[in-house]
Each structure stands twice: as structure tokens, then as C-alpha cells.
């Protein structure tokens, strides 16, 4: 138990105003931090840019899912209608791109939705049952009236004392060390 508590997750500090946390985030970004996060009770427009976050990679999995779905639909209809049990319906060819097109695009949409849904889980690292931040006594307040910046220990820039001082220089209050 004691040994586990030696491992440090990171350092957290709180802010009381949107403009403070916004400008602090810009400074953390400019200092080159990669593993850090901002917690706010509501979305702050422009925070993505202030944090230097790239676009979400989820759309790539959506596209991959869509292409997979289209191909799956083609194989499905071709296998059933033209290969396994060739059947003429309404004088149409065994297989063409026209008559099964509703199947093809429905499969495209379905698999693209799967790609988005499961891609979101993958990139958000969900499901996750607990998080070290939940042990912070004042963490519940970031869903109420407080903003929080957390610098994580896995970032190569992390050094306990320097990071603490850095947060202090940004104007952060209630600087707390979070243990795993």
C-alpha cells in the first residue's frame, strides 16, 4: 500500500476564472507539454487551440469503417445472390452495383457508425473504472465552479518541484500532488 502511494500521477492546481485557466493553458502549451489536461465544468470555446490539441483521430476510423462496410455489403450481396444461390429477381442481373445499392450504403453507414462509436472508446481509453484524479478531495468542484490544470508525471518535462513552481507561476491555487 505504501509503495503504491510512492508513484506520482501528476500535479494539479485550480483556477477560479475562465480567462485565467485559458491563458495558463496557453502557457503550458507553449512550454511544450504533451501529457497534461484541463478540467472545466463547461466547454470553453477555443480551449482546443489554447491547449494545442490536434483534431480527433476518430474520423479516420469512421472512414475505415465506411469503406469496410461498403466492401462487406458488396461481398454479402454477391455471395448470396450470385455465388451461393444464384437467383434472378425481377429480371435483374445476379449481381450489379444497382439493385443492392440500398444494402451497400446501409452497410456503409452502419460500419461507419461502428467505427465512430468504438473508435471513440479506443481513443478515449474507455471503459476505465477509476482514475487517480477521483481521489482528489476538491476534484468534484471542477463540475461546479472551479477549473483545473493537471500536469502528468509521464510527460518527459515532469519534475515534481519544477512543475509545482511552474503551476504557481501560472497563478494556480491549491497545488496538489496526485498519487496513483
Amino acid at each position, binding site marked *: 500500500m505504501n509503495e503504491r502511494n510512492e508513484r506520482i500521477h501528476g500535479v494539479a492546481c485550480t483556477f477560479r476564472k475562465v480567462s485565467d485557466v485559458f491563458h495558463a493553458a496557453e502557457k503550458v502549451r507553449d512550454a511544450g507539454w504533451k501529457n497534461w489536461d484541463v478540467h472545466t465544468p463547461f466547454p470553453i*470555446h*477555443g480551449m482546443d487551440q489554447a491547449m494545442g490539441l490536434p*483534431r480527433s483521430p476518430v*474520423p479516420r476510423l469512421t*472512414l475505415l469503417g465506411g469503406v469496410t462496410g461498403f466492401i462487406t455489403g458488396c461481398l454479402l450481396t454477391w455471395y448470396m445472390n450470385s455465388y451461393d444461390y444464384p437467383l434472378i429477381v*425481377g*429480371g*435483374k442481373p445476379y449481381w450489379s452495383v*444497382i*439493385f443492392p*445499392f*440500398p444494402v451497400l450504403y446501409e452497410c456503409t453507414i452502419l460500419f461507419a457508425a461502428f467505427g465512430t462509436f468504438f473508435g471513440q472508446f479506443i481513443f478515449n481509453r474507455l471503459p476505465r473504472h477509476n482514475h487517480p484524479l477521483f481521489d482528489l478531495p476538491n476534484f468534484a468542484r471542477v463540475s461546479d465552479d472551479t477549473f483545473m490544470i493537471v500536469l502528468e508525471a509521464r510527460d518527459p518535462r515532469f519534475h515534481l518541484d519544477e512543475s509545482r513552481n511552474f503551476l504557481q507561476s501560472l497563478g494556480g491555487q491549491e497545488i496538489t500532488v496526485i498519487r496513483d
Partner: protein
Amino acid sequence: MSTSSPHALTAHWKKFLAVGVVALAVVWWFAFAGVQHHDNRQALSVLVGALFWAAVLIGMLMLTMITRVFDAGWAPLIRRNWELLIAGLPVVILVGIVPLAFLPDFRHAVWYWTDPAHILPGGHEVGHDPILVAKSWFLNEKFFLVRIALYVGVFGLLAALLRRWSFAQDTDRTAGHTHRLHAVSAVGIPLGAVTLTMLAFDCLMALSYHWFSTMYGVWFFALSIRLALAVTVILTYKLSHGGWLDGLLNQAHRHVLGCLMLAFTVFWAYISFSQYFLIYTANIPEETFWYNIREFDAATGLKNEWWGVSMYLIFGFFLLPFLSLLFYRTKIVAGRLLAVAWVILVGGIVDLWFNAIPRQVYDKSAPEGFVVTPFLTSSLFLDLLAIVGFGGVVFALFLRGASRQETIPVHDPRILESINYHE
């Protein structure tokens, strides 16, 4: 940034008008000469040119009302340009479609169901066609002319109301105009939808009156919005480089226009394909002939020119814009969005050609008793000239309006939200 005022553009309105009037005079002269020689193709150029701009402006009228009803925060900055442009909608119908419908020679040439002596494939006259007799409660000349006049009236009224109260707000700063325009738009959307559906039935579907598609109005709506958005992207790009949107149009505005372009590209494809798919599946001769003449020669079974046009619609008008617009960067990088807008604009012209031009022309010597109007003729240039002509008139009215009204709706309650719009 140019040193001249952002409104220096408006001084050019007379040049636009001159180009428009000269081009339309040439097109009408060719149409007149063609009709004298029993050739309707030049008259169809007038129809294609008028319908192209009617589609653009109907799309803008609908977008104006839709953004009003949904209180779209991004819209006011861009919507003012639509409000300035839709002044041209009744004018385009009045200068293009009304003369075609009301002058008997042109009416008979364009809408052959109005000419009882017109010979159908097979050698029968239109006047003795039982299909026309059955449809005559709707397809009779008197009702047809009343409807054409109604299109001018309804679109003219909606455009006038939407413009009037929006412009009034610039001077009297009353928020009540926004509520009033909200109410007008709520009534105007279904009214506009019915009117544009009837316009598409009368001006395009009835060109080949044996054929019918209940999705035709929705197809025309989808095409209208696509063309309206393409023109909006091109126009706002131009206006943000030395015009009144310089420094105001931002990435988020492009993004929202790009998203709408993507949505309506998919919607157009969905409607166009569904129309084809239902006719293909049901396989009823009264419906399939419309697609058959657009694919192959009836006697030989070989693909004709229209097959190439339909392939262009699938790959050039749907797949290319669709795949490009899927990418986020296409929607925010000004040059890329502009390129897609041009692709959609060209595709829209091709789609109008596909719908308006091909018809079965009686020919006793042909094996099947008819020939199909070819695609590749010199009249394509006349079509483009007609588009330039009507476009000149539309933009002359736009620039003249811009010189008299505020080009930014400065007292719209949502103007700050619109200017500071972000993703």
C-alpha cells in the same frame, strides 16, 4: 487588401447589366430564329439559363427562410448577400420562363404537350393522346399559364417580404423585425416548397409529359440548395478579397458552408438515385423510357452520348465533391472549398442538361420511329451564354442593391454572434 472601398464593386452594376442584356438579346434572337425553323433547341437554351439561376435563387430563398426559422447564429453575415440576390428571382422567371410560356410559338416548341398538332413517336398527334387527355385537368394551357404567373407572384412576394423587413431593421433597429421574419419564414417554407415543386413539374418534368416522378420536386430542391451554396461559397470568397466581407469571413463560416455542401451533395445523390432505383425496380415502360433514352440507342442498344453525361453526374457531380468534402481541411481551406464549389456549379449545369434536353423526336425513317436529341451540339455554347446573360442581370441587381442597402445587417440581433462565429 485593396486600397479602394469595399463597396467599389457596386459601381460595376451597369457593366453586369450591359453584359446580361447583350447576352440575353443574342440568346433570344437565336431562340426566335430556331423556333421559326421548327428547331426548339435554342429555346431550350433560354429555359436552361433561366432555370439555372432560378435554382440558385430558389435555393438562396429557402436558405434565407430556413436560417431565419432556426435562428442560425452563423447566418446573418452571409444571409444579407442572399437577401440582396433574391431580388433577381422573380426577374429571372419573368424574363426567361414567362415569355417562353406566354408566346405560343415558344410554348409549342418547349412544351410540346401544348401543341395539339405535334407528332409523337409512333406518328400520333398530341391532341389525340389519351394520356394527355387524362392529365388535361392539370396540363391545360390556361391552368399552366396561371401557374407560371403564380411562380412569379409567390417567389416575388416571399423575396420582397424577406428583403423589406430585413432592410428596415438596418435603419429602425427594431428587434420585432426578426420575429416578423421568423413568422414569414415559417409560412414561407412550406409555400416555397410547394411552389418550387410545381415549378419543377411544369418547367422540367412536363417537357416529357408521359413521364412522371413524385420525387422530382425534392430533386429540384436538392439541386437548388447545392447550386445556391456553391454560388455562396464563390461569392463570399470574392467578397472577402476586397469586398465587404474582407476581414469578416472566417474559417468557421467556410466550415459551416462546407458541411451544408456535403450534406446536400449526399441528399442530392440519395434523391437522384432513389428516383432511378424505383423506376429500375418497377420496370414499367411509361417510366423507364425516360432513363432509356438517356442511356442507349433504342435500335442498336449501343450507349449514346447521354450515357456519358449520366456517368459524369455520378462521378463528377456526386463522388468527387462527396469524397473531397469528407475531409475537414477541404471545408476550411478557402482555395479547396472554392474548387469544390466550382465542381458543383459545373455539375449543376450538366444535371440541368440531363433533365431538360433529351427527348424523343418523331422520325419516320428511324428504326424505332424516333431519334433522341443529341448532347454534343453547338447549342451548348448558347446554353452557357444564356447562363451568363441571366447571371449578368442577377448580379447587376445584386450590386445595385448592395449600393443602396447595408451590406452587413448591422442591427440584426445576432450579427455579433455571426461575425464571431467559431466551430
